[in-house]
C-alpha cells in the first residue's frame, strides 16, 4: 500500500523568499519514484520535480529542489526566490506498482 501525507494545508511566503513544503510517504515498493506537482488556478497539473528513490542525490530543477530522506520516508520541496507565479496547490506523489498516489496538497500563496 502507498500513502502520502502533506501536513501543511496552507502556507504563504513573501516574494523572493524561500519556502519548504513537507511530505512524508509510506510504501511497500522497493523501487519507486516521488514527484511534486503544481496545480495553479488554471487547474492544469504540472510536474515540478521528480526523484528516483534509488538515487541518493537530491533532485533539483532551477529554483526547485528536494530534500529526500529515504530512511525517514520524507520528501520535502524547497522553492527558492519565490515568484508570484508559484502561487498554486502543490501535491506530493509517490508511484506504486501501477499508479501515482497523492497527498492532500498544500496551498501556497506568494505575497508581493
Amino acid at each position, binding site marked *: 500500500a502507498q500513502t502520502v501525507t502533506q501536513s501543511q494545508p496552507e502556507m504563504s511566503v513573501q516574494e523572493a523568499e524561500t519556502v519548504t513544503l513537507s511530505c512524508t510517504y509510506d510504501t511497500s515498493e522497493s523501487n519507486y*519514484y516521488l514527484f511534486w*506537482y503544481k496545480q495553479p488556478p488554471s487547474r492544469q497539473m504540472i510536474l515540478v520535480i521528480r526523484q528516483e528513490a534509488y538515487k541518493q542525490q537530491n533532485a533539483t530543477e532551477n529554483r526547485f529542489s528536494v530534500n529526500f530522506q529515504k530512511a525517514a520516508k520524507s520528501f520535502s520541496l524547497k522553492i527558492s526566490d519565490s515568484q508570484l507565479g508559484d502561487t498554486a496547490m502543490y501535491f506530493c506523489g509517490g508511484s506504486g506498482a501501477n499508479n*501515482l498516489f497523492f497527498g492532500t496538497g498544500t496551498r501556497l500563496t506568494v505575497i508581493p
Partner: protein
Amino acid sequence: DTAVSQTPKYLVTQMGNDKSIKCEQNLGHDTMYWYKQDSKKFLKIMFSYNNKELIINETVPNRFSPKSPDKAHLNLHINSLELGDSAVYFCASSQDRKGTYGYTFGSGTRLTVV
C-alpha cells in the same frame, strides 16, 4: 500539440443522465489513468489501463465504466449521474506502469451535476 487532451473541458448535466468524457494522448505512452479531484482538491485514482488492459479498478461505483479502444485513448462513461459525481476528472498517461519518467495530465473536465 496537446500531449494529453480531454473533452469536454466543462460538462453540466442533470441527475440521472448518462455522459462520456474522452481522453487521447499522443505521447506513445503505454499506461493511462482516470483520476477524480473532489471539492477539497483530493486526487483519487479511479482506473488505470496498460496497453488497453485494465490494471487498476479502485472502489468506484459500477455506474462508471472506462473503455480503452487502443492504447492512445481512454474514455470514461458515467451512467445515471448523481450530485456526488460533481468533480474535476483528470486523465493522465505515463510511459510505463511505474511512472518512471513521470505522469502527464490532461487539463481536466469539470463535471457539474444539477
